[in-house]
């Protein structure tokens, strides 16, 4: 039984803080809107009609529940614990991102907003946002760093097909961080009619909380599926962490199960000892960016350092505030995985399981060689395969020196 006082599932507090992290570090122009959003979110959460519509779209539009799959050949390959996949890559649009977008666009409609904006890194969140905008008939503007536009062309075209306007962002390193800056600039200038669908469990309160809640469908399903299939809870959860929405979505429903260990996998880029990585917990320190306090890659003056990862979706110098808190209290362990390890795992999963994982998810899979042997054959490791890798084949081909 869960003792509420000792629960890990009661964050954030009423001010949006997860321990010292989170909060609402935004310009005054946005504050009233943020407070409004929080009020509306509380009302929606308590409204059975909102939940019914969300659940119905999840079932019939997204295709949930996503399967729980026993990865027999990978299990055999590593010779340790049983490896199971939560198949988020089978969702409509090919990743977990759609779960959150459905929730947020229903909120936007509730609030009477008539225009949607979003940032995107790999393009998965942009595609998911463009998808729900098409579905609900709202105009959609996606900000995307021009570096990412170049390396994620298929997703750029997908967004355009879905009717979104994709605006390449030329500032900074021209990746996810800069796209988020530009989206916030748009938002502050258009608060009256615009809803910002943030793609990860970060940003000002209440975004980290509501994104987590919408993504928790992953962990709730996985928990029930595991119990139904095996009669037990998994012994270890593995998920990749950029901003951290797929990870927190999987982890949160298990946080009060002390027998379930959890590892969040950060992008180690060329190695955390180099200056080219995106491991903000392993290689960063607490600071304030994009509306929340969290671990950041930064220099001695608090200037933000550009992140690097082969995976565009993990290429961000911060992390969701709840992960910073879970890291500090030790409930979740975080492990960096380098580009080359992720590439190796990407290929292994293709060949042994017939599943092309997203490079983001390949980071989670790449932790398996390090952890699988620590578990016995009757123990279970559940990996969140958060997205499919079709979008990444050009990047992977390039990294492997292959010509398409």
């Amino acid at each position: 039984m869960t003792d509420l006082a000792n629960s890990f599932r009661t964050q954030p507090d009423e001010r949006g803080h997860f321990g010292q992290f989170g909060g609402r570090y935004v310009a005054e122009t946005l504050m009233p809107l943020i407070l409004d959003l929080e009020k509306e979110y509380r009302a929606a959460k308590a409204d059975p009609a909102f939940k019914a519509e969300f659940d119905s779209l999840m079932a019939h539009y997204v295709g949930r529940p996503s399967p729980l799959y026993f990865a027999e050949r990978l299990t055999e390959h590593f010779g340790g614990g049983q490896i199971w996949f939560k198949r988020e890559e089978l969702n409509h649009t090919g990743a977990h991102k759609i779960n959150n977008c459905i929730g947020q666009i229903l909120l936007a409609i509730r609030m009477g907003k008539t225009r949607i904006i979003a940032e995107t890194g790999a393009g998965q969140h942009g595609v998911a946002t463009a998808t729900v905008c098409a579905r609900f008939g709202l105009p959609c503007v996606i900000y995307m760093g021009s570096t990412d536009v170049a390396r994620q062309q298929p997703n750029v075209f997908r967004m355009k097909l879905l009717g979104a306007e994709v605006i390449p962002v030329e500032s900074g390193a021209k990746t996810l961080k800069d796209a988020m800056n530009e989206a916030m600039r748009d938002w502050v200038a258009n608060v009256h009619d615009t809803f910002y669908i943030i793609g990860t469990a970060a940003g000002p309160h209440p975004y980290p909380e509501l994104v987590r809640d919408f993504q928790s469908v992953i962990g709730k399903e996985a928990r029930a599926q595991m119990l139904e299939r095996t009669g037990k809870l998994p012994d270890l959860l593995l998920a990749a962490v950029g901003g951290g929405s797929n990870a927190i979505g999987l982890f949160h429903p298990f946080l009060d199960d002390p027998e379930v260990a959890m590892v969040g996998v950060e992008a180690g880029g060329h190695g955390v000892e180099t200056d080219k990585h995106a491991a903000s917990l392993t290689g960063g320190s607490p600071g304030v960016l994009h509306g929340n306090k969290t671990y950041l890659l930064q220099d001695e003056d608090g200037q933000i350092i550009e992140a690097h990862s082969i995976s565009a979706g993990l290429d961000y110098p911060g992390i969701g505030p709840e992960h910073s808190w879970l890291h500090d209290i030790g409930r979740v362990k975080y492990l960096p995985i380098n580009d080359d390890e992720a590439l190796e795992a990407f290929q292994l999963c293709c060949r042994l399981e017939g599943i092309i994982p997203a490079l983001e998810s390949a980071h989670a899979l790449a932790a398996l060689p390090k952890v699988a042997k620590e578990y016995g054959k009757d123990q279970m490791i559940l990996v969140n395969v958060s997205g499919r890798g079709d979008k990444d084949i050009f990047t992977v081909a390039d990294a492997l020196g292959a010509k398409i």
Partner: protein
Amino acid sequence: MSRFESAFGKGRPALVCFITAGDGDTAANLDALVAGGADVIELGMPFTDPMADGPAIQAANLRALAKGTTTADILALAAGFRARHPEVPLVLMGYANPMIHRGADWFAAEAAKAGVDGVICVDIPPEEDAELGPQLRAAGLNMIRLATPTTDAARLPAVLDGSGGFLYYVSVAGITGKQQAAIDSIEQAVARLKASTDLPVAVGFGVRTPGQAEAIARVADGVVVGSAFIDIVAEHGEEAAAPLKELTAALAKAVHNARETVA
């Protein structure tokens, strides 16, 4: 009497001038602003991710950082300014992370030591005041808050609580350097703010020309100009002092005499 009280107590509207620290010859540029007639100086602290700024100030931030401008350099610029201009109020304006990275106490103490009078932090709203406000006030500095068109009557007391120096009214919901609000809406907003506070109200965002500044000065205690100066530094580089002084003088004339020329 504090420097702010003097600057806003001259019986005429005040001109508040913003430039980014480390962009161009900052010390010479600051002197040019004062020589041109600036009543209050806002010195921007460059940040890698200036989310509330338009293209002009974004670019200034990146130019300053590309030149290697550090927090120590900014504090040295402030101290040098204070030594040369004992009477002119000096405000540091920027984003939270560089201000709190070494600890808000450290930043407040160093800013006070450098002769800074107040701080504007774009991304610390009243809800997160504990991050910086108490430390500034303990060091004798003013936390200058921003009010915006979205700050309603219910929120205004929270914005005013703990704020000092002057109140900065951001006249448009948007980023710096873009469009300007209609003068009627500014007049109404300033009247609403002044009914709730004794602090002077300065109006900024999108003010570029003497004509715009004059119109605002008729209804507000101060006018803030930033991007127009930044454009000059962008164009003239290290040699921006003379044209900065020229624009400041034109703006100062328009602002200082605004209420005498009302038709």
